């Protein structure tokens, strides 16, 4: 279609971009059948009729470091600055099921997130925070069943009605095997645990979102934007099948599934990705999973500025990138937004940098008119064509995964990990060669001496020592017979292949530690062995 003298442009998802779009382009790509109205099936234009006009997106910067006292202070700083939700970062020992005094945790306690050993730590971390006003998202996966139980137990202790409690856990273990890497148990036991949390919450905490399926980290690991959505959907379907085989009806849980997506790269491709993804997920839930309730078909999401797009070079440019990513997220119709801060290629963000991210989002809601009208990109020939094309790309990838035996199988033998890591390698070659332009990295560079140094978040070993002290105090003051009894019940339930959540709840309430509960389950389930495949 384009004139021969114009350079061919193909987006990351593999769609050739024309220099001009018109009504015919929209027709040729499948027409406007899938657009519909906001708040109505198939939700291309948004899951709510009035979208941000009624309620702006939730602002939820990822935060947590040191011990629960430090983190509680950071939470309050963010809330005082107008943040409307919390997104909790845990340290690696907590994420991998180790106590703070475990030898393998040495040097890592409180480093990349908050250290948590027992319910006591949750009591401290959320002290003074109104859990009805501020919804809390826990970025936790391998040990998610334990930390969800801690959150519910903490809220219950503070007098909240668990029946009405809102909140989210990431709890998407399949993507941890592909990227991010905080797995603990083998693949099948891990999927069973996700099923246990969904089932438990459906019956006991029906407003709580037990899973946030993440395309985000698979995109960081190398896949393209259309594949990011497709992989998230096949993973979500795997969890849905896990609980539906237990007799749960799709409408009992699907409305509480949520998503986490990434933003970097081409602006239009990302916005089309979200619009296309919404309608495709709605179709999957309605047609494949046979849901009746429209709410079950909602693609609820957090969409944030991805770390993968930010650069080590000229880090202050990341402030500008973050602003574009926030704009994309708003144009894409997200429910919740978080931005990686400009210094995150170096360190965990300081109060200064995270406040810039928060202010970036606030500029969109308060200065730029992004909350005034629903789905402002709709009706653009380019946007509607691209939305249709992105949906087709996603469907192609989903069909490929099915043809290869399904996502669980592909994760188990390392096939999908090898595939995305090969893509990451190709991207790095393209960045190194300049074929994939990155401002400040392979074009418009500055001299090394001119590069600004960023301020580093200081890691305080004292915080880790205090955490170990407080763990020892808990172990000395709790009813250790009750803990032993709860842990043996947990083991028995794991062996009997029944839902382990009630037993975890009991152990949590007895102040059993993350490491003790994890070890009890490892005894039964074993540990994941990573397939090394290139």
């Amino acid at each position, binding site marked *: 279609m384009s004139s021969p003298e114009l350079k061919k442009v193909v987006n990351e998802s593999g769609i050739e971009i024309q220099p001009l779009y018109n009504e015919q382009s929209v027709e040729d790509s499948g027409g406007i059948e899938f657009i519909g109205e906001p708040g109505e099936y198939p939700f291309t234009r948004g899951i709510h009729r009035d979208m941000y006009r009624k309620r702006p997106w939730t602002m939820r910067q990822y935060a947590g470091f040191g011990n629960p006292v430090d983190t509680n202070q950071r939470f309050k700083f963010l809330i005082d600055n107008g943040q409307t939700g919390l997104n909790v970062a845990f340290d690696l020992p907590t994420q991998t099921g180790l106590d703070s005094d475990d030898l393998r945790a040495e040097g890592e306690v409180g480093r990349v997130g908050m250290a948590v050993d027992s319910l006591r730590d949750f009591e401290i971390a959320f002290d003074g925070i109104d859990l009805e006003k501020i919804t809390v998202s826990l970025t936790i996966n391998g040990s998610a069943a334990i930390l969800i139980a801690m959150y519910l137990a903490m809220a219950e202790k503070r007098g909240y009605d668990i029946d009405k409690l809102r909140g989210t856990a990431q709890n998407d273990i399949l993507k941890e095997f592909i990227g991010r890497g905080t797995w603990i148990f083998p693949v099948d036991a891990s999927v069973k645990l996700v099923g246990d949390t969904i089932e438990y919450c459906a019956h006991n905490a029906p407003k709580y979102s037990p899973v946030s399926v993440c395309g985000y980290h698979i995109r960081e690991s190398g896949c393209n934007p259309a594949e990011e959505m497709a992989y998230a959907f096949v993973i979500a379907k795997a969890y849905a099948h896990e609980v539906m085989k237990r007799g749960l009806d799709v409408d009992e849980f699907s409305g509480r599934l949520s998503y986490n997506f990434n933003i970097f790269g081409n602006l239009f491709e990302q916005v089309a990705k979200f619009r296309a993804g919404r309608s495709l997920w709605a179709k999957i839930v309605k047609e494949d999973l046979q849901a009746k309730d429209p709410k079950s078909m909602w693609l609820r999401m957090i969409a944030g500025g991805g770390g993968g797009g930010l650069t080590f070079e000229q880090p202050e440019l990341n402030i500008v990138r973050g602003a574009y990513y926030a704009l994309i997220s708003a144009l894409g119709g997200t429910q919740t937004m978080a931005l990686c801060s400009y210094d995150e290629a170096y360190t965990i963000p300081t109060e200064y940098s995270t406040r810039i991210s928060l202010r970036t989002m606030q500029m969109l809601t308060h200065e730029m008119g992004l909350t005034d009208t629903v789905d402002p990109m709709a009706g653009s020939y380019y946007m509607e064509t691209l939305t249709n094309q992105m949906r087709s790309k996603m469907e192609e990838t989903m069909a490929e995964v099915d043809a290869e035996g399904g996502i669980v199988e592909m994760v188990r033998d390392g096939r999908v990990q090898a595939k995305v890591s090969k893509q990451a*390698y190709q991207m790095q070659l393209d960045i190194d060669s300049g074929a994939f332009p990155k401002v400040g990295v392979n074009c418009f560079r500055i001299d090394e001496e001119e590069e600004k140094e960023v301020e580093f978040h200081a890691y305080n070993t004292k915080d880790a020592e205090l955490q170990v002290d407080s763990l020892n105090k808990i172990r000395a003051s709790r009813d250790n017979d009750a803990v032993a009894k709860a842990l043996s019940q947990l083991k028995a339930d794991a062996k009997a292949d029944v839902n382990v959540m009630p037993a975890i709840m009991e152990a949590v309430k007895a102040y059993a530690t993350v490491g003790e509960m994890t070890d009890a389950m490892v005894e039964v389930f074993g540990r994941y062995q990573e397939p090394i495949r290139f």
Partner: protein
Amino acid sequence: MIAADNSKIKILVGKPGLDGHDVGAKVVVRALMDAGFEVVYTGLRKTPSEIIEQAMKEEVDVIGLSSLAGSHIHFCTKLKGLIDQYGLKDKLWLIGGCVPKPDHAELKRIGLDGIFPNGSKLEDIVDFIKENA
């Protein structure tokens, strides 16, 4: 031609500690393989002793570490003790990932031969190994 020379060099790429970021490590493994080196990847979550054990078993010439969770000084200090203990000082020792400039002097003092922070070019890593291993 290059591949034939490089095939005599064996490299271990290791992930010490609990850090789950393996995109970069795997990208580097592929680049080293494409350059013709023999490469062994440890996988995630290895203790310093596991890394040294594997390096000795595989009789590698180069030990490369990838670290993105900030604990690089801690692990390199531990590894240094084991390297001395097992007489592995002749191995070329490299680190890459989120390894900020203020830490480079300390890492050099510990004994790292090459530091390749985010933003390093793959061919620079390949060339460094070719010249120094």
